[in-house]
């Protein structure tokens, strides 16, 4: 599966994802991957967990579309995107984006592009669990600015 996406409740194993990205490949001189995790402080709120919702059907479609755009813009050998949904707790892994290419510029840039577009286009919504109760996360201007540079 050189290009694949997954939306799942289960955790992912970075080592396994890496092994699959480079399996049977002798050209990928560069591998870049990003892992997003549940962090304790968000916009000065103390977070103990997240509930992640998505829109089955559309979320996978948007991820596939973002992946296609990245393949058109950069020379990529393999890409893997995994995004978890459901109930997550502090330090849990949320998202994995892994990219391989012959050269590092392509791998670095494509990985950043994929994350910037995933954050601003893919239908996922986070609800934080805090001591003050549960609250939906607001969209972030920094994420929108990050997307605009592409």
């Amino acid at each position: 599966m050189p290009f694949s996406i997954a939306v799942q409740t289960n955790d992912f194993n970075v080592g396994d994802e890496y092994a699959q990205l480079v399996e049977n490949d002798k050209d990928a001189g560069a591998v870049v991957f990003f892992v997003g995790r549940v962090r304790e402080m968000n916009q000065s709120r103390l977070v103990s967990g997240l509930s992640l919702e998505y829109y089955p059907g559309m979320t996978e479609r948007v991820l596939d579309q973002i992946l296609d755009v990245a393949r058109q813009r950069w020379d990529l050998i393999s890409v893997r995107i995994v995004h978890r949904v459901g109930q997550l707790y502090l330090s849990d892994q949320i998202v994995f984006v892994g990219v391989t290419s012959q050269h590092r510029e392509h791998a670095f840039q494509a990985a950043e592009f994929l994350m910037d577009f995933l954050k601003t286009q893919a239908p996922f919504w986070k609800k934080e669990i805090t001591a003050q109760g549960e609250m939906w996360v607001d969209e972030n201007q920094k994420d929108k600015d990050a997307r605009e540079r592409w």
Partner: protein
Amino acid sequence: MIQVVFLAQLREQLGSNGIQVDSNSAKSIGELKQYLISHHPEWAEFLENKKLLIALNHEYARGDLPLKSGDEVAFFPPVTGG
């Protein structure tokens, strides 16, 4: 029928996962919105939120697209994944 879906915070604000609307009552996304608000005036403040995103059959809908029976229209807040 048109399947209307509400997601995330909007679903909680409206107290509804979604509803079905007769395709004769809404020939476009704009008409659908007006139909929803006329039948549920308490939804107006949420459905008129300018930040709300709309998808038609799992694709982002930009502009007032025409609707037909069998379509699925989703309304949802800005996305916050990753």
